[in-house]
C-alpha cells in the first residue's frame, strides 16, 4: 500500500474532502455540526469499528465539501483504536482510501500549548492544513490575547478564529479550506539538534523506502521513538522494530532520552512561538490560581457532596424523563388514534381494514408515543457531556469503578448505555486495556437502554399507582429509578465477577482531562437530539412497521370459525387462540408460566428479541385484535382475567416482567456490535454468546425470584 506523494487537488467533479481532527473537548463536534447541519451520515470505518461520521455542505457557488469527523486525539501516537484510525486516514493507509484534500485541525484557543502538539504533527504530513482557533470567545474572556497573524507566519498555515457554538467564523473558515487546497502544504518548522537528526536519518530513510513520503517519514520517525507497541498501519514495512531500536540506541549514545525527544522538541518549539504570539493579562495568568471552574469543582468533586450531587442529578434526569414527557405522549397518542380511525373509516370492512387499524396503527403507534421520552433522555445526556460535567462524573465514579475492577473511563460508555447500548459499546474504544474493555462491553447492555423505556412505562403506568413519596418524586418515578438502579448495580457486580474470573488483570491508572465548565451549545445539542429522533422514527417506520405487519398476520390467520352466538370479546379471544400466534404462544406457555406470564406475554417477549419496543407494539396488536378498539392498552392489561376469573396480571407479575427486561439482552444490533468490538470472527461470537447467555439466565432467574419471593413475602 503506497501512500500518495502528497494530497491531490480535487477534480472538477469531486467534492472537496476535508478531514477534521483535534483534541477531545475542543468543540470539534460542535464545529462539525455547524458546518454540516443535518446533512450527516453515521457509519463505521471499514475493517474496524470506529464510528465514522461524514457530512457535507455546499458553498454559495454550489461547490460541495465532504467532511469527515475523525475521532478526537491528543496526538497521532495511537493510545486507543480511535486515535489509530485517525492516523491511518491521514496517512492514507485506511482501508477506504478516503484521501483528504485538506485537514482541518480544531484547536482550543484556551489550551493552545497542548492542542498545538497534535497540530504540529499533522502539519508535517504533506497535506494542506487549516487551523480553526475555536472557543475564541472564551479565550478572550480569560484574558488570553492571541496574535493570529504572528501564529500564522510561525506555523505556516491559515488560522481562522471561530466560535463554533455561535456559528462565528464559519464563512472565512469555509473559504480558507478552498484556498488551502491550492497552496503548497506546510512542513516542519522547527529543527532538531544535529546529533538527533543524524541518529534518526537511517530510520527516516528506512520509512521512505517503505513508501512514506519524506515529511511523513520524518514525523513518524520522531513519533515512533516513544512508541513500544507495533502499529498496524506500518506492519508492511519490514524490519522496522530493529531500525527503531538502533535509532534509540544512537540517541542514547549522544546523551539524550529517545522517549522524550518528541515532547521536548515539539513543546519546546510551541513554547517559543507562544511566547511572542500570545499574551495573557496577568489577572488570569497563573495556571495555579483558582478559576470559576475550580470553585465549582470544589463542590462537584467534594468527598461527600460530590456523590450526593451526582445522585440528585441522576434522579432528576429520570424523573423528568418519566413525567415531563407525559403530556406530549398523550398528545401523540390522541393524534395517532384520530388518524387511525379516519383511515380505517375509509376502508371497507375486511382484512385490509384490520391490517391497517390493528396491525399498523396499533403496532407502530404504541411505539411512536415514546418519542418525547427518548428525545428528553438524549437531550440530558448531551447536556451533561457538553457542560463538562461528564468528566467529573467519570471521575467520581472512578473510585466505585475501581472496586469492581473497572476504570473511571468505563463510566462514560455505561452512561451512554442508558440511551442505547450500541454507541455505549463503541465508546469503549477509549479504554486501552483489553480486559477492562471487554468487561465493560459485557455489562453495558445491563444499563437500561431507551428501548426498554416503553416497556417500563407501559407496565408502570398500568400497575403502579402514582402515590407521592417526596416532593417531586412519586412511586411511579421511583419504580422507574429502581429499575435503572437495578441494572446499574448488577452491571457493576457482573463486571467484578468477570474481572475476577474470565477477564483478570490489573486496573490501569486513570488520566482524565477536566475541561472547564461551559455553557452547552444549544444549537449543536438540538441537532444531535434531532438526529437521534429521526433515527428513532426511521426505525419505527421500518423494522417495527414490518414486524407489526407480520405479527398481525400471525395473529389473524388462520381464521377460526367462530360461534356467532358468543359475545364480541369472547369471539375475538377464540380467533386469537386459533391463529398461528396463539398456537405458538400456547406451546411456549409452560416455559413462562413459572414467571406468572400467560401466552400473550410469552409471545410478546419472544417477538421483542428483535427489538424491545416491539413488546409494546405486539401487546398493542394482540389487544387491538382481541379487544375493543378504543380502550387504552393499560386498561386492557389491568382488566385481563384468567380462565378461572382471577386477575391475570398483578403488580407483582408486572414488576417481575420489568425485572426480566432489565436483564435480558434483546437487541440484534447490540449483539452485532459486541461481535465486532470484541474482536470479530470467532472471538467476537464467543463473547457475544457469553453475553447473551448470562443475561438470559439472569433475566429468567431474577424474574422468577421476584415473583416467587414476592409471593412468599405476602405480595400478590
Amino acid at each position, binding site marked *: 500500500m503506497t501512500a500518495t506523494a502528497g494530497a491531490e487537488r480535487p477534480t472538477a467533479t469531486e467534492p472537496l474532502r476535508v478531514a477534521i481532527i483535534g483534541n477531545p473537548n475542543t468543540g470539534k463536534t460542535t464545529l462539525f455540526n455547524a458546518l454540516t447541519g443535518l446533512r450527516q451520515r453515521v457509519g463505521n470505518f471499514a475493517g474496524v469499528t470506529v464510528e465514522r461520521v461524514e457530512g457535507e455542505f455546499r458553498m454559495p457557488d454550489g461547490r460541495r465539501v465532504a467532511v469527515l469527523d475523525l475521532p478526537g486525539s491528543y496526538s497521532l*501516537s495511537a493510545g486507543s483504536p480511535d486515535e489509530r484510525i485517525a492516523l491511518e486516514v491521514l496517512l492514507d493507509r485506511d482501508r477506504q482510501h478516503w484521501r483528504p484534500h485538506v485537514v482541518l485541525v480544531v484547536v482550543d484557543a484556551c489550551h493552545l500549548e497542548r492542542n498545538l502538539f497534535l497540530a504540529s504533527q499533522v502539519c508535517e504530513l504533506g497535506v494542506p492544513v487549516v487551523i480553526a482557533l475555536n472557543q475564541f470567545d472564551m479565550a478572550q474572556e480569560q484574558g488570553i490575547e492571541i496574535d493570529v497573524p504572528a501564529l500564522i507566519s510561525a506555523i505556516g498555515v491559515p488560522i481562522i478564529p471561530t466560535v463554533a457554538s455561535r456559528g462565528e467564523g464559519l464563512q472565512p473558515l469555509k473559504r480558507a479550506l478552498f484556498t488551502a487546497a491550492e497552496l503548497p502544504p506546510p512542513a516542519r518548522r522547527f529543527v532538531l539538534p544535529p546529533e538527533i537528526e543524524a541518529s534518526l536519518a537511517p530510520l527516516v530513510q528506512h520509512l521512505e523506502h517503505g513508501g512514506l513520503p519524506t515529511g511523513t517519514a520524518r514525523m513518524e520517525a520522531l513519533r515512533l521513538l516513544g512508541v513500544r507497541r507495533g502499529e498496524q498501519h506500518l506492519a508492511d514495512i519490514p524490519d522496522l522494530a530493529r531500525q527503531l531500536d538502533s535509532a534509540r540506541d544512537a540517541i542514547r549514545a549522544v546523551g539524550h532520552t529517545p522517549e*522524550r525527544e518528541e515532547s521536548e522538541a515539539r*513543546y519546546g518549539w510551541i513554547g517559543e512561538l507562544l511566547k511572542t504570539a500570545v499574551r495573557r493579562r496577568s489577572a488570569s495568568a497563573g*495556571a495555579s490560581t483558582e478559576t470559576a471552574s475550580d470553585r465549582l469543582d470544589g463542590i462537584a468533586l467534594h468527598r461527600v457532596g460530590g456523590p450526593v450531587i451526582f445522585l440528585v442529578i441522576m434522579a432528576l434526569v429520570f424523573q423528568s424523563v418519566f413525567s415531563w414527557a407525559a403530556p406530549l405522549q398523550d398528545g401523540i397518542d390522541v393524534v395517532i388514534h384520530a388518524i387511525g380511525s379516519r383511515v380505517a373509516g375509509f376502508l371497507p370492512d375486511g382484512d385490509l381494514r384490520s391490517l391497517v387499524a390493528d396491525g399498523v396503527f396499533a403496532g407502530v403507534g404504541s411505539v411512536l408515543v415514546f418519542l418525547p421520552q427518548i428525545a428528553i433522555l438524549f437531550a440530558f445526556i448531551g447536556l451533561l457531556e457538553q457542560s463538562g460535567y461528564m468528566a467529573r462524573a467519570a471521575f467520581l465514579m472512578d473510585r466505585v469503578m475501581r472496586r469492581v475492577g473497572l476504570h473511571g473511563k468505563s463510566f462514560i460508555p455505561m452512561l451512554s448505555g442508558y440511551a442505547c447500548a450500541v454507541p455505549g459499546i463503541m465508546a469503549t474504544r477509549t479504554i486501552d486495556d483489553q480486559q477492562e474493555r471487554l468487561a465493560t462491553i459485557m455489562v453495558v447492555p445491563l444499563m437500561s437502554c431507551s428501548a426498554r423505556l416503553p416497556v417500563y412505562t407501559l407496565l408502570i403506568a398500568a400497575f403502579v399507582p402514582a402515590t407521592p413519596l417526596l416532593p417531586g418524586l412519586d412511586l411511579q418515578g421511583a419504580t422507574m429509578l429502581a429499575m435503572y438502579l437495578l441494572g446499574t448495580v448488577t452491571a457493576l457486580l457482573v463486571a467484578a465477577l468477570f474481572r475476577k474470573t474470565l477477564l483478570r488483570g490489573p486496573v490501569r491508572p486513570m488520566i482524565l*482531562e477536566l475541561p472547564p465548565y461551559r455553557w452547552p451549545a444549544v444549537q449543536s445539542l438540538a441537532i444531535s437530539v434531532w438526529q437521534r429522533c429521526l433515527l428513532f422514527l426511521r426505525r419505527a417506520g421500518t423494522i417495527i412497521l414490518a414486524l407489526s405487519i407480520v405479527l398481525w398476520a400471525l395473529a389473524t390467520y388462520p381464521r377460526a370459525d367462530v360461534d356467532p352466538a358468543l359475545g364480541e370479546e369472547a369471539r375475538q379471544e377464540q380467533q386469537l387462540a386459533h391463529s398461528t400466534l396463539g398456537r405458538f404462544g400456547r406451546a411456549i406457555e409452560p416455559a413462562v408460566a413459572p414467571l406468572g406470564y400467560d401466552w400473550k406475554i410469552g409471545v410478546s417477549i419472544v417477538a421483542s428479541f428483535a427489538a424491545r419496543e416491539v413488546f409494546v407494539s405486539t401487546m398493542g396488536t394482540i389487544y387491538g385484535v382481541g379487544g375493543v378498539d378504543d380502550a387504552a392498552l393499560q386498561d386492557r392489561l389491568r382488566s385481563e382475567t384468567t380462565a378461572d376469573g382471577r386477575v391475570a396480571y398483578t403488580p407483582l407479575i408486572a414488576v417481575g416482567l420489568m425485572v426480566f427486561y432489565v436483564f435480558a439482552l434483546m437487541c440484534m444490533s447490540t449483539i452485532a456490535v459486541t461481535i465486532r468490538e470484541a474482536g470479530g470472527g470467532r472471538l467476537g461470537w464467543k463473547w457475544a454468546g457469553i453475553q447473551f447467555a448470562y443475561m438470559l439466565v439472569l433475566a429468567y432467574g431474577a424474574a422468577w425470584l421476584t415473583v416467587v419471593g414476592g409471593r412468599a413475602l405476602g405480595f400478590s
Partner: protein
Amino acid sequence: MGSEATVVAIECGELEACRLRALGLYEGAQVSVVGKRHCLLVDVNGTRLALGADLAEGITVRPQGRSVS
C-alpha cells in the same frame, strides 16, 4: 497547594507515559499542582488533569529544589 514544579521522573506503564507526554507532562516539563483530593490535580500548560492515585505516586516532581512525590 498551588505550587509550580518541574517533573523529574515518571514511572508508569508505557501506554500512560505516552499519553502523558502527548499532554505535555514529560520529564523536564513545568507543571502546577492544583490540588490533592482523592487523586492528583495538576495543571499542565493550562489543562487541568486528574490523575489517579496510583499514577500520581509514580510521578516525582521537584518544586524549587525539594523532592516531593
